[in-house]
């Protein structure tokens, strides 16, 4: 078949394409990931018992806002890396900003604490389970996002996989905040970050193999 034949063949495929179909697909994937994460959290972990009073504390909202801010940056990275030829622009800064902000809060908290209190701020009571739980809650979104990304056309596969992993991780962390009793910025800046880095790393590792087209 010569190239002109192929072009005629391609032009004969008249199945219409929906403009910006990626928006709908990613919205569905995030919705499914969110529902999955909440269901897992309720079944396996449960809401924190003092949620009713915790929501009155600013730190509860900081803990929630941190992964949500990261989620926004990671979503931007994911949708741009899913389609050929789009510049990343300031996406890296959008992802770095929430992490830097929580680290600033962590340093302030540590400086204001006595040496005895400091280790409690860093380790909390749940550091052994936090990263694994964040990873677990990120898995529904992880699978759904990779599913969608596979229907699009990423050209930087490792980076695209990492972005989808971070997006899933941030969503998992946001849902985990409804269970997690920890309230220290140093804890968040360390263990939540590690929890989100696990799906990010996983995405970077499997991206090149899974996302090829």
């Amino acid at each position, binding site marked *: 078949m010569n190239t*002109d034949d*192929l072009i005629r063949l391609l032009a*004969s495929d008249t199945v219409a394409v929906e403009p910006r179909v990626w928006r709908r697909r990613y919205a569905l994937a995030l919705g499914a990931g969110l529902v999955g994460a909440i269901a897992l959290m309720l079944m396996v972990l449960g809401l924190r018992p003092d949620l009713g009073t915790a929501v009155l504390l600013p730190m509860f909202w900081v803990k929630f806002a941190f992964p949500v801010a990261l989620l926004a940056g990671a979503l931007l990275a994911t949708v741009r890396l*899913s389609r050929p*030829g789009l510049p990343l622009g300031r996406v890296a800064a959008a992802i770095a900003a929430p992490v830097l902000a929580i680290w600033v809060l962590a340093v302030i908290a540590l400086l204001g604490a006595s040496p005895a209190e400091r280790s409690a701020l860093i380790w909390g009571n749940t550091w052994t389970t936090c990263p694994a739980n964040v990873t677990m809650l990120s898995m529904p979104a992880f699978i759904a996002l990779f599913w969608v990304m596979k229907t699009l056309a990423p050209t930087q596969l490792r980076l695209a996989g990492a972005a989808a992993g971070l997006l899933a991780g941030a969503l998992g962390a946001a849902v985990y905040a409804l269970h997690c009793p920890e309230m220290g910025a140093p804890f968040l800046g360390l263990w939540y970050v590690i929890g989100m880095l696990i799906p990010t790393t996983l995405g970077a590792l499997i991206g090149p193999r899974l996302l090829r087209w």
Partner: protein
Amino acid sequence: MSELKNRMLSEGEARLRELFVRGLAGDAAVYQASLQELSTHLRAFLRRRLSSLPDDVEDLVQEILLAIHNQRHTYDADQPLTAWVHAIARYKLVDLLRSRSRREAMNEPLDDHAELFTDSETEVADARRDLTGLLAQLPDNQRLPIVHMRLAGLSVTETARATGLSESAVKVGVHRGLKALALLIRSKHEH
């Protein structure tokens, strides 16, 4: 990698983009014309990049055209067409070079035999990989619509009558068949 960009810019990115967008909106003739024009840019671009593998140029042009078509839902009209096409061309080019270097590293002697008979002079102007041969591997509900419509030049209605499929099944068959074809090409790279 900027030659393709410059070339397309000089030929009028805006005009080609308009053609392509109109084509995507459902004007098959305009779509065909835009692919035709893109193919000439791609060929020139790849000839320069693949000077050591001249026999691969037309194969890669075809593979990139198929990729452009199959991934056309990832193009937004507000994005420069040049950047989108360039990113796809670059991705497929890197893919080809990677699979070539892997194959050479493995030093697979079977490849030499397989390519022995295709290596004739009359095929120089044609693609080395014959897509018609790959088409034969597709299931009937995809292969028949493609064969009738393209190679025999029938319309959707005529193809439906000839194959006993419904008109929408013919359309879907072509659509899915082209995706399957891209997968077949890719799996050939990997082996």
